[in-house]
């Protein structure tokens, strides 16, 4: 049987794989490091030049070409196949990520660069040179087209980066293994067996990684998140995921969107500045409960009067990520590293119950929505009574209170609970496209007027005085419903039950 056409099929696969690894590396690096023009340019440059180096190196190989070819295939299978998972892993754990990235791109490029010259030399005895060059190069470029079409249309949206990488590694291993049959008469029988064992082991490892990737929830997440995951880590408390999509970066905790860079400033300006606007003096001591992303603190630090910010967030991993992941650090303007800010990792309920501190001028309460009992306790009369003990008579408090449109009773339940705890409350709402209509509650221990003036000398992208006063108006479908609303207490957790029943409608 003439095996030459089958070897040409290998050329297409090799070419496709090669370009896929290049695209993977470029995509991962632009997600992770941002600035996609630079990243794509650098990755393509390094990759192509590495291919040149590979081609040049092929000149030094004289003997056992078929065996070398299979070995190179297997090497590409390992390095290329594990490239994306390895890049994500190193990104989460090492600071010299770009060195690893470029080194990996170079190694893959060099190995791929070796492939075609070797294959051509193997085939040169089967077919005359003119046709050989014509067909190999034509198929090589055709493979590149296949890859460049598959990658954005099918692979990234359907498989995700990690699984794409592993699957193409498997293809490379397959080509290598197949080669041991196609080129059987060119390889010593003993070597053939060794190569087959190696190929088999590599294929099994890739398959295990593929299954493990599933177990590590990345598959589930790939399905869950529309965008690509650039960072994912399970802390003791929650699953932290950062994604990159068309509208920017998003942070998810346990699958719930916390912000999107596209419109987070709307959410955080609306959260922070009204509280400062209703404080009569110059707030010096600020308390932030939750808000481990550092974005509320970014807004707080715009006020020169602020002397200390105490941020209490449950999860040390969250506050660490907000400092160490470049896109997050940039977004929060490194607020958590500011000398005025101290971070305490504790459950806010336990902290309020036990910590002894001076009272605060402004408290920003920015917890995830009350979708479980552990979070529900952070919205109870007990919690607000504990908070009261950390306030001065003229302190201002603001609380994120979920969506008055999607979870109307939940929203008003929080407002009623605050009132039952002795606060004077002014609820307000605004639109954050990523979330929808979103609600907050402004509260003080004494009656107060809704704010109408914004502080001077504070740079704002969203709020102006007109929007500020309009936020305190509620539409007919978001205002206080005409039915009895329970107060959320530790011993009834009414809010979690409201929230469950209201949000379940949208699942």
């Amino acid at each position, binding site marked *: 049987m003439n095996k030459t056409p089958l070897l040409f099929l290998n050329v297409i696969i090799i070419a496709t794989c090669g370009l896929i690894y290049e695209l993977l590396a470029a995509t991962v690096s632009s997600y992770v490091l941002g600035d996609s023009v630079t990243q794509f340019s650098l990755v393509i440059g390094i990759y192509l030049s590495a291919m040149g180096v590979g081609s040049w190196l092929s000149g030094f190989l004289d003997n056992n070409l078929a065996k070398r070819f299979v070995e190179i295939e297997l090497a590409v299978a390992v390095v290329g196949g594990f490239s994306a998972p390895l890049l994500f892993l190193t990104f989460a754990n090492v600071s010299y990520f770009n060195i690893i990235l470029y080194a990996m791109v170079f190694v893959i490029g060099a190995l791929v660069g070796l492939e075609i010259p070797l294959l051509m030399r193997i085939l040169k005895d089967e077919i005359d040179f003119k046709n050989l060059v014509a067909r190999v190069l034509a198929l090589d470029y055709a493979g590149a087209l296949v890859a460049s079409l598959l990658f954005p249309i099918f692979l990234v949206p359907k498989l995700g980066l990690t699984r794409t990488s592993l699957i193409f590694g498997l293809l490379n291993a397959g080509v290598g293994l197949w080669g041991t049959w196609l080129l059987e008469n060119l390889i010593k029988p003993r070597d053939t067996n060794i190569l087959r064992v190696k190929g088999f082991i590599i294929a099994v490892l890739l398959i295990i990684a593929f299954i493990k990737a599933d177990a590590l929830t990345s598959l589930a997440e790939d399905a869950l998140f529309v965008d690509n995951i650039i960072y994912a880590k399970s802390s003791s408390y929650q699953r932290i995921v950062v994604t990159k999509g068309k509208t920017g970066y998003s942070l998810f905790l346990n699958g719930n969107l916390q912000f999107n860079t596209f419109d987070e400033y709307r959410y955080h300006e609306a959260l922070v500045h009204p509280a400062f606007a209703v404080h009569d003096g110059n707030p010096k001591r600020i308390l932030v409960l939750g808000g481990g992303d550092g974005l509320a603190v970014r807004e707080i630090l715009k006020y020169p009067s602020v002397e200390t910010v105490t941020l209490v967030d449950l999860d040390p991993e969250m506050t660490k990520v907000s400092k160490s992941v470049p896109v997050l650090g940039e977004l929060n303007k490194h607020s958590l590293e500011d000398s005025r800010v101290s971070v305490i990792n504790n459950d806010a309920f*336990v902290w309020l*119950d036990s910590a002894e501190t001076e009272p605060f001028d402004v408290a920003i309460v920015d917890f995830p929505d009350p979708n479980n*009992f552990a979070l529900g306790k952070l919205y109870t009369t*007990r919690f607000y009574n504990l908070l009261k003990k950390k306030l001065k008579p003229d302190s201002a408090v603001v609380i994120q209170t979920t969506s008055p449109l999607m979870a109307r009773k939940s929203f008003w339940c929080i407002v009623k609970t605050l009132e039952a705890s002795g606060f004077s409350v002014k609820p307000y709402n605004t639109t954050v496209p990523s979330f929808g209509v979103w609600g907050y509650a402004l509260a003080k221990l004494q009656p107060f007027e809704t704010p109408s003036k914004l502080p001077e000398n504070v740079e704002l992208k969203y709020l102006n005085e007109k929007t500020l006063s309009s936020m305190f108006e509620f539409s007919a479908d978001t205002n206080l419903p005409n039915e009895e609303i329970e107060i959320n*207490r*530790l*011993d009834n*957790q009414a809010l*979690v039950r409201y929230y469950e029943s209201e949000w379940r409608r949208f699942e």
Partner: protein
Amino acid sequence: MKFTRREILTAFLGLPFALSACRSKSENTEVAGEIVGANVNVGHILREMRNVEVPPNNWENVKVAIIGGGAAGLAAAYKLNKENFGDFVLLELENKIGGTAQSGESNVVPYPWGAHYLPVPFQENTELIALLDEMNLTEGRDVKGELVVKEQFLCREPEERVFYKGRWYEGLYLHVGENEEEKRQFAEFQKQVDFWVNWRDATGRRAFVLPVANCSRDAEVLALDKISFGDWLRQKGFTSERLFWYCDYATRDDYGLKLDQTSAWAGLFYFCSRVRKSGEESQPFITFPEGNGRFVNFLHSKIKDKTRMKTVALEIIPTEKGVDVIYLNTETNEIRGLHCEKTIFAAPIFTAKYLIRDFKTNPPEFVKEFEHNAWFVANLFLKDRPKNRFPRDFPLAWDNVLYESPSLGYVNSTHQKGIDYGAAVFTYYYPMCAEENARAKLFALNHKELADIILTDLSRAHPTIRELTEKIDVMRWGHAMISPRTNFLWSTARDKAQKPFRNIHFAHSDLSGIALFEEAFYHGIRVANEILPG
């Protein structure tokens, strides 16, 4: 006699489960911890010691001696002290105060060794409410005059969950998979409860109320004491397995008895005595991480200087002028004597025949009617709490019950503190339910065997419990609580036992036939009032 692992697990957890547990590879490895609490030998000194002599210099005079530092003895002492009656001492056998309400301390959270909650009392229970006010647990009264307890002391939601066939569900009664007939029966059962909640006798007394002393003695109610709770359910036509389980859990939980051992009066008491009006919820629970340890520690704090720990009363001798009490200090092995005017006997009633001189030779008839059951309670110190296996499983609650287990499941001590992550202490309860030779069976086991029973039982719901558990301490309660069997509560035994014997006054929840803090407290206060001058 030594038992195999399979024999032990079969005896405590049933044969099918024991077989599967022994078949699986779950290693029966040693877990740290110890058997804590009363040394049985000390308890049995009572029976061994004869003709004890008190050295002449070791006699002292005190007006009142209180025997026993459980809730009843402490309540009596607290009341005497409150009324400025200071001339008394309290003798406690153990090195910890509180009897079955005692608690322990860990670096995460304190935890109970027995009783762990108190339903908010009705407004009529003024003495108990005064205690809660004094402990600063209350906020005032509502418009109807009912007590309002501070939010942080009321059991935090979620209160209960039940594990059934691999999943956790909310609540104690198992609603999942209920058919129409079962739903009807459960509603009918609620109606029966409502009937007795609303029932009043000719003088306006409730059928079931705390303390038991205030319950109606109308024949219609007392007739319930003559049949078992199980028979009562069957007579009313109930057949639902899950309803029987629910009622059986109730009697095991409150009385350490199975459904068919418990009197129907006691069974209905459980369901009716804490509901103010038909249709209303049961009174909310007051609870603390350390359970009822909070109450006994508070009572103790008021009379600490009058307490003598690790002392065993050896003999109580009624005399012409009063009572002589001879006791042993188990630390110094010194025998001492008290010449008293009165003695408050606040120990379990069955011990009276070993202590009171006149009873030793000629115990009164009623003593043998007071039967107690054995329990063991364990505290598991976990480095992290077990995760739910399914996202839809109901999350960790305060009380976590295993439907298929003879144990009562466990209570999570970090719950009331609002600690929802990381290390935890779980308190596991296992009532021996008046089995033959229960005490002997329990005391034959060593720590490793007890720990294995507990971990194997919990591994039904938490396969990783062995890895998470850093230490298990176990308390064996040989005589944990009085058993309200049929024909005990409203026979004449309790009335007779409550009468003072010469200058010895009796105060114990045994006298109510129901082992609750409210009852112990009631008898402590009652006896103190009997003794107080004027």
